[in-house]
């Protein structure tokens, strides 16, 4: 009797399990019509523009909130929520004419009052703004409903470019105390963007829906779902299984296979992230420019790009990425081990000299592998690098130690990507005012001429002159070689061949708001 009951119960369970499986299969893949699905590797730490630090998070939040200026795919700054602007002769006051007829998702009009509120919040020390430096706002005034006057604490030419970065995006002042929002911490962003914040499941997804009242061109998809998938191989599987339409950063070793796969399209988007080895000019023989040049000649950058990064980078030909305002091509340290050896001998560096070499693991594309390759090339010219790696926060604490006497690193593998495409943020790396602990110019490189040009360029309001100054800086820095210049990283984006109109911005953002089905 008892056995019978158990058997009966078991078969019942089996049926349930079967039904569940069947249901599961039906409900699993295949997105609803009108939904565009994107898989990214990092979860949103915040949706509050003022607190933004991570590009991919900004990329998602950009669907909902917008900035006064915007970056176009070629990296140029264009008017967006501001239609035009003028600068006072002293370079301190900008007057912005705002786009009319724009409303926030909650119906609040986007006007001068709203802009003033957002700028007041951006400069308020009570609000946590990790990247505040590019926004030296002293005061914002309402001139009329669609005119705002912004006074800066110091002249800053890159200010208009900085306004394209998500930190300065506009949220509805009226929504700042609703839906869980606090003035100091926005958790439900209400903006003017083409999509409206719908739902956020932490660690899992972020969903936005179409804004019917959007002022600009309307996107195709009703809903966009961002899925948080930290593992690169899993993101790739999701795409190959047709369970998402676009992913960023597939496993880099799969780049060649993805290029051959006709079901997907691979975009190796140009980025502004320069990857280099910082040489601490205050340590050992690294103070000698001949040694620093020798190390630049010693490494075959092309081979590393080809074999370690699978083509996902371009060799540097200036101390900044070509997409930056202020870039000019300066030259190349071609692979020449004989010349490297000769320079090292001239500088009196004996074969077998040890040097410490720190690198992160998993922070930049193939950072560990590339560091090992670089170390191999250095060994060939008689330098004995001692490789050390650690997790990112530990790594930053080592390379950021300052002043110079307290620093311990000698060679350090690092990436540097300005948030907006202007040389101003790049040349901080070559400015002595940015030596640790004040900043992250980890080479402690100091050239009085370069120092002078960096400050002059930041204040210069004539863009042509500013460009000339950055070109001068580039030439000098290239010759002084405080970095072992490696490459400008590319940002791989892969999407289904069933969709089209997917692009990228040159600062590691995908541009898929206007994606649509192919055919």
């Amino acid at each position, binding site marked *: 009797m008892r056995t019978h009951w158990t058997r009966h119960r078991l078969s019942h369970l089996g049926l349930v399990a079967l039904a569940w499986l069947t*249901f599961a299969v039906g409900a*699993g893949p295949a997105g609803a019509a009108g939904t565009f699905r994107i898989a990214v590797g990092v979860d949103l730490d915040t949706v509050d523009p003022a607190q933004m630090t991570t590009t991919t998070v900004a990329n998602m939040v950009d669907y909902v909130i917008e900035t006064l200026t915007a970056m176009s795919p070629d990296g140029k700054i264009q008017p967006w929520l501001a239609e035009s602007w003028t600068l006072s002769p002293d370079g301190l006051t900008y007057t912005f004419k705002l786009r009319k007829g724009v409303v926030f998702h909650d119906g609040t009009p986007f006007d001068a009052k709203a802009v003033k509120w957002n700028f007041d919040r951006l400069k308020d020390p009570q609000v946590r703004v990790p990247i505040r430096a590019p926004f030296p706002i002293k005061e914002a005034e309402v001139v009329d409903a669609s005119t705002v006057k912004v006074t800066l604490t110091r002249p800053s030419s890159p200010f208009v470019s900085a306004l394209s970065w998500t930190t300065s995006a506009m949220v509805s002042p009226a929504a700042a105390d609703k839906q869980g929002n606090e003035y100091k911490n926005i958790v439900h962003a209400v903006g003017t963007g083409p999509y409206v914040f719908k739902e956020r499941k932490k660690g899992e997804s972020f969903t936005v829906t179409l804004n019917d009242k959007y002022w600009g061109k309307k996107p195709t998809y009703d809903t966009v779902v961002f899925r948080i998938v930290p593992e690169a191989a899993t993101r790739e*599987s999701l795409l190959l299984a047709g369970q998402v339409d676009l992913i960023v950063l597939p496993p880099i070793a799969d780049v060649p296979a993805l290029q051959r796969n006709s079901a997907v399209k691979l975009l190796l988007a140009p980025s502004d992230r320069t990857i280099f080895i910082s040489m601490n000019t205050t340590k050992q023989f690294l103070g000698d420019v001949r040694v620093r040049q020798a190390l630049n000649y010693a490494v075959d950058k092309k081979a590393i790009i080809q074999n370690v990064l699978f083509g996902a980078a371009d060799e540097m030909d200036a101390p900044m990425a070509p997409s930056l305002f202020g870039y000019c091509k300066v030259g190349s340290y071609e692979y020449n081990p004989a010349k490297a050896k000769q320079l090292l001998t001239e500088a009196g560096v004996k074969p077998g000299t040890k040097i410490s070499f720190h690198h992160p693991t998993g922070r930049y594309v193939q950072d560990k592998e590339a560091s090992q390759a670089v170390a191999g090339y250095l060994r060939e010219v008689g330098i004995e690098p001692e490789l050390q790696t650690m997790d990112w926060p530990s790594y930053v604490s080592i390379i950021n130690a300052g002043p110079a006497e307290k620093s311990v690193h000698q060679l350090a593998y690092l990436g540097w990507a300005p948030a907006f495409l202007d040389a101003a943020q790049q040349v901080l790396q070559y400015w002595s005012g940015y030596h640790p602990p004040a900043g992250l110019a980890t080479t402690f490189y100091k050239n009085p001429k370069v120092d002078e040009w960096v400050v002059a360029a930041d204040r210069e309001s004539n863009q042509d002159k500013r460009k000339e100054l950055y070109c001068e800086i580039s030439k000098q820095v290239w010759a002084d070689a405080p970095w072992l210049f490696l490459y400008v990283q590319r940002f791989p984006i892969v999407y289904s061949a069933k969709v089209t109109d997917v692009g990228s911005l040159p600062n590691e953002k995908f541009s898929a708001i206007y994606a649509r089905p192919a055919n």
Partner: protein
Amino acid sequence: MSLFRQYLAQRLLASAVTLLGVSIIVFLMVRLLPGDPAQVLAGLLATEEDVARLRADLGLNKPLHIQYGVFLERLLHGNLGRSARTSQPVLEELKPRLRATLTLAVVSAVLASLAGVAAGALAATRPYSRFDYVLSLATLFGVSMPTYWLGLMLIIVFAVHLNWLPAAGSEGAASLILPALTLAAFSVALIARMTRASMLEVLGQEYVRTARAKGVGETLVVARHALRNALVPILTVAGLQFGTLLGGAVLTESVFGWPGMGLLLIESIFSRDYAMVQGIVLVFSTLFILTNLAVDLLYVAIDPRIRYT
């Protein structure tokens, strides 16, 4: 019953002391790690002033014992502080994550216990049979296979090639299947091996022979006489395994993008989010302690020879 109450009170008190110890250790350990949370949070482009302001904002410029005092006082009020990374209360962040991790761990534990005990018991009744060899090979595979690799293989087969199941996420019951199988694999194998060994020992005992001699059917002999007596060591392993499942969820969650506590713990360590790390470790420790307590109580239910002392 009063003995039971006394026992329970003692155990709970000991648990509270353990948790206090855990709180001190985790508090100190996260702070001993190199790396400045404010610097990491602010990012490379932030200025020194921005970082200093952030440090003050997070209360990290106060002496250690004051920071611990603040932490403990909040803890007694059931407040785990705010996450540095997300500015949200840690408890709010943890709730959905805990639910996700527990769902995965419990389903895997049930799966592992049922399959492990069944397979192990079956093998023990047919020692050195073909089934026994196959099982022993399979369990060897199970205990030695890296979770990460197994997870990816399952994804490639069931999501990419067959397209039966979602490759990642936690939408719907179907998404639970692959992570639960991945997570359970090690435990199934271990429990099966344990059950087989324990059962083989019991099946050789005289009371089993007696039971058979008096004409009890083989099924009943195995299920009632042997399995129940073999259960104590199995339960110990299964109980410990539950703790491992919670911890092992870290890798599985990361492969499958399962929004649980393991994933959050990794992110929090890498961003030096002290409050969040402390909160997660405390929750994990509490669960571990409660599981051990539950196992100890179950011993008594299973084996009347064990008494509270």
